[in-house]
């Protein structure tokens, strides 16, 4: 799956399917130390793992998008959401948004912009560039909870889409392959059709919100 995947399966030896609910990892970008502290707490209290950075430049460095030294150690980096302030010295939140959407690694990661100013052209510009949402500061707990539900829902829907395409592939495989019986390990993930696994995962997620 792509970077930012939420799905992980743990199959105990008994063969029972259990789904762990992994935490969302959020990257929060804000030049204000007060706002960083607040957004970090808002996210932690909403059961998210949080990384905070103080500028757009540092954010790009963290994501390995700064064109600097190797992104090789970053291939396991999972970021499910990026929340960024709009007005920052140097790279603005809008500039950061553009760079993220231009990258192949992180373009699918939802980006939320925060601003203390309710400027309609600014909001439109951000949404047009692909921002998931535009939050007016000061950010409240209700805002964060809403965003989290939105992200989880998007991830679940993405999973359903994947499960449908997997189902098709599975049928194709069945049609074309000759019968081959092999001893099945009960704890093997391969026992269960991937489509069923994905479906149960997305259903479990749906029950979360």
């Amino acid at each position: 799956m792509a970077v930012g995947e939420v799905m992980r399966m743990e199959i105990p030896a008994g063969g029972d399917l259990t789904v762990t609910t992994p935490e969302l990892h959020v990257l929060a970008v804000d030049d204000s130390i007060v706002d960083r502290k607040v957004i970090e707490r808002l996210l932690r209290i909403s059961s998210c793992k949080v990384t905070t950075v103080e500028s757009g430049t540092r954010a790009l460095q963290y994501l390995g998008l700064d064109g600097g030294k190797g992104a090789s150690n970053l291939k396991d980096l999972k970021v499910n959401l990026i929340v960024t302030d709009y007005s920052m010295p140097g790279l603005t939140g809008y500039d950061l948004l553009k760079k993220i959407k231009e990258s192949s690694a992180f373009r699918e990661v939802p980006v939320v912009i925060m601003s203390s100013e309710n400027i309609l052209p600014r909001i439109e510009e951000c949404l047009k560039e692909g921002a998931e949402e535009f939050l007016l500061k000061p950010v409240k707990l209700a805002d964060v909870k809403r965003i989290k539900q939105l992200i989880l829902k998007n991830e679940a829907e993405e999973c359903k889409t994947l499960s449908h395409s997997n189902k098709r592939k599975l049928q194709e495989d069945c049609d074309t392959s000759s019968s081959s019986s092999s001893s099945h390990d009960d704890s093997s993930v391969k026992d269960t059709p991937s489509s069923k696994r994905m479906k149960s995962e997305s259903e479990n997620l749906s029950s979360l919100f």
Partner: protein
Amino acid sequence: MDTLIAQLQRQFRDYTISLYHQGFLDDQFTELKKLQDECSPDFVAEVVTLFFEDCEKLISNMARALDQTGNVDFKLVGSSVHQLKGSSSSVGAKRVKGLCITLKECCDSQNYEGCVRCLQQVDIEYKTLKAKLQDLFNLEQQIVQAGGRIPQVDI
């Protein structure tokens, strides 16, 4: 007869309400309190501490800029007051935020006298709030030390 705890709790409740009614705090402060719990019992105190440090730093920057008579960098003053307005908004420091808005206006119109006057008021205001919140936190401590719980105050 009121126990010590009950007295302290009443004092705490009254003082909190007065801070809101007199416009020192707004509902963003209430939002911050929601984020405080047993796992993060000093969250509000930590945030406001950062805020007051921010105030000191930004006010000092602005004072220095305004001191350059004949060559005042109003852009710098403007960006500093924008930052201060933002953080005062995030902690619910209502009066400080209001003064920042006025200061920003003076800055935008390059009103030197206005900026100087306003900055002085911002300085007084944040220090007043700092003292009042210190009193509030002291009351909390007294309640806890007396074995009581800090009451939830609905504004």
